[in-house]
C-alpha cells in the first residue's frame, strides 16, 4: 500500500494542482479537465498496442538477431534501421522510451537507441506530411534536412558524454524490467 502510494505521488500532486486551479478559476479548470480527457484518449489509443508489440518483440526476437542488425557492429545498417523504425512510428515521444528500454535489453548499440529516439521525436513520416500541409513544403523539407544529420550528430555526442560504466548501469537496469 505504502509502495503504491509512493509510486503514484507524482500523479496525486498533479491532481492536486488541477484541483487548486479549478478552485481558483472554474473556467480554466474545466478547460484543463477537457485537455486531460483528450490526452488520456490519445494515450489509450496509442499506448496499449505499443506495449503489446514490445512484449511480442521481447519474446519472439532473439537477442542475437537484434545485436546483428542494430548492435555494436551493425554500422550503417544499424543507423538506417534505427532511423527507419523511429520514423515509421506513431504516437507521442513518451511512447518511445519503453521501446528504447527493450532495445537496450536486446543489446542494441547505445548510439542507435539514441538515433531511434531522435527519429521518433522529429522525423516521423505521418507528421512530416502533416507539417507540409500546415507550414509549407519549404519549412518542412528544410527542417527535415537539418534534422537528419543533426540527430546522428547529437546521438554521437550523447554517446560520448556517457561513460561506458554508466551505460552498463542503464543496460543492467533494463534487464530487471
Amino acid at each position: 500500500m505504502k509502495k503504491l502510494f509512493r509510486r503514484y505521488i507524482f500523479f496525486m500532486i498533479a491532481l492536486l494542482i488541477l484541483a487548486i486551479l479549478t478552485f481558483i478559476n472554474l473556467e480554466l479548470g474545466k478547460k484543463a479537465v477537457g485537455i486531460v480527457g483528450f490526452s488520456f484518449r490519445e494515450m489509450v489509443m496509442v499506448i496499449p498496442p505499443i506495449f503489446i508489440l514490445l512484449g511480442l518483440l521481447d519474446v519472439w526476437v532473439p537477442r542475437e538477431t537484434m545485436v546483428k542488425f542494430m548492435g555494436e557492429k551493425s554500422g550503417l545498417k544499424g543507423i538506417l534501421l534505427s532511423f527507419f523504425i523511429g520514423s515509421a512510428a506513431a504516437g507521442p515521444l513518451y511512447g518511445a522510451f519503453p521501446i528504447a528500454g527493450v532495445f537496450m535489453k536486446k543489446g542494441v548499440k547505445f548510439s542507435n537507441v539514441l538515433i531511434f529516439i531522435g527519429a521518433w521525436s522529429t522525423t516521423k513520416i505521418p507528421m512530416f506530411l502533416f507539417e507540409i500541409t500546415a507550414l509549407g513544403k519549404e519549412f518542412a523539407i528544410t527542417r527535415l534536412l537539418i534534422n537528419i544529420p543533426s540527430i546522428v550528430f547529437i546521438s554521437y555526442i550523447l554517446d560520448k558524454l556517457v561513460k561506458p560504466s554508466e551505460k552498463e548501469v542503464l543496460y543492467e537496469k533494463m534487464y530487471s524490467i
Partner: protein
Amino acid sequence: MTNVVLYGAVGIILLISFYKDKSKTKMALKKAWKAFENILPQFLGVIVIVGVMLSLIDPETIGILVGNQSGWVGVILSSVIGAITLIPGFVAFPLAALLLQNGAGVMQIAAFVSSLMMVGVVTIPVEIKYFGKKLTLLRNTLAFIFSFIVALIIGRVVQ
C-alpha cells in the same frame, strides 16, 4: 486512422503469435502489462500536468509575444514554450500555422516546433526511468540548443 492501422496490425501479429505458440504469447502479454504498469503512474501524472499547462496558454498572447520583431528574445521564448508544453503533432502544426497568421515570425515558429518535438520537460519523469538523470538532462539540453540552430537556418531559408 493511424490508430485503426496500429490496432489492426498489432491484432494480426498477436493472432499469428497465438497460433504459433500459446505460452509464448501469454508471456508476451504478461511482459507488456508489466512494462505498462511500471510506467503508468508517470504517464498519468504527465497527462494531468499537460492539461493544466495547456489550459493556461492562450494562442493570441503567444502570437504577440513571438512576433516577427521579437528577434532572439522571441526565439528563446518560443523554445521555452515548446520545451515545457506537450502537444500532439496534429494539434501543434495547425497551431503553429495559426500563430504564423497571427504575426509570429518564421524563426520563432521554427524554434517552437523543433523544441516542442524534441524537448520534453514534462515527460522527464518518464525519460529518467529509462535513461537515468544524466542522459535525460543532457539529451533535453542539447535538443533545446539545437532548436536555435533550426530557427537560424529556417529563418535564412524560408521567407
